């Protein structure tokens, strides 16, 4: 099941711009290893799910995975072959707004090699550059 908010105050929001770097959610909080975004962009709920499945398959259900981002933002789209006007399109997908430095996924309970491979596979599902981080690196 795709990730999306259970209830929102407004159905549609403005597009917005992604300025600055992540000031919170930028360190390892739960796991021993993680991937951190290096560029900015949007991550759809489908991409989050694809990355999660890739990681859990790679870890062979042994490790523990944390998803540190949530797609709070609705993105609308007008139907094909529609004339301009007639209001804003309907919500097509939900995205997480990602700033450089955001910790996307964390992993624990497995070796560094297994975590690195799992997070590399997750990285291939994402539309921006990421880097592998570990608690040992932070020292």
């Amino acid at each position: 099941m795709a990730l999306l908010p259970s209830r929102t105050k407004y159905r549609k929001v403005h597009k917005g711009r992604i300025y600055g770097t992540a000031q919170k959610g930028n360190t390892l909080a739960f796991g021993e290893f993680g991937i951190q975004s290096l560029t900015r962009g949007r991550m759809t709920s489908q991409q989050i799910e694809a990355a999660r499945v890739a990681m859990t398959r790679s870890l062979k259900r042994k490790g523990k995975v944390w998803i540190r981002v949530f797609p709070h933002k609705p993105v609308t789209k007008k139907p094909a072959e529609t004339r301009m006007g007639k209001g804003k399109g309907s919500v097509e997908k939900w995205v997480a707004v990602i700033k450089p430095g955001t910790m996307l996924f964390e992993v624990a309970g497995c070796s560094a090699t297994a975590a690195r491979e799992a997070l590399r596979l997750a990285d291939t599902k994402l539309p921006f550059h990421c880097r592998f981080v570990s608690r040992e690196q932070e020292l």
Partner: protein
Amino acid sequence: MHTYSLNIFSREKTGRGSARRLRTAGRIPAAVYGRGNCRSIAVSAVDFRNLNREIGGGAAVVELKDEKGGTSLSLVQEIQRDAVKDTINHIDFQEIERGHEFNTRVRVTLVKEADCVGVKNDGGVIDHQVYEVEIRCRPSKLPDHIPVDVSALEIGEAICIKDLPELEAVEYLGEPDQVIVSCQPPTVAAETTDDAEAVAADEVPSTKVGRDDDEAAGAADDSSGVADGKS
């Protein structure tokens, strides 16, 4: 306990501009507080990086030496890092006094992780939940880290703060029942027929969303509301 030493430079100017100039000049702005006085200082970026490597993530007492020859004992209370560039932006030192007790946080390290009974025999997963614990001790008794032996840990068992090894003149301050590390049972693999579509979305129970919002439940009723938009 080993005491490390670090040269510091006092600074008068504070604020973003002077802090940026310091960083450009190869220094890191820092602050020393505790024992009633608080002052702004700077340290050499290279010296601090070497010191940090030498300490290796453990707790340590650092002797700060200023230009006038004065010294003071302190702890590295907090290091602010740039999340993208991975450079150090600012350091907080907390002054402590010899012979006086103080509170600090110390890393918990797992020992004999590979020999854990629950992992070796039953295929369990070690769940390290708390990486640091708060302790109270004197500077001379400050442990580098708290070693936790997990070799005897079986599936379903946990090591709490009350089970931590007793160290001389060290008092654990956290909740005694706070779990530090536990051994979780392995998740049962679902039958995999086709590799492409074998793992369905809801089949992996060990995944957690880091942010504890209450969005998980009742998603279906909102999706129906979303579909009612203009077309």
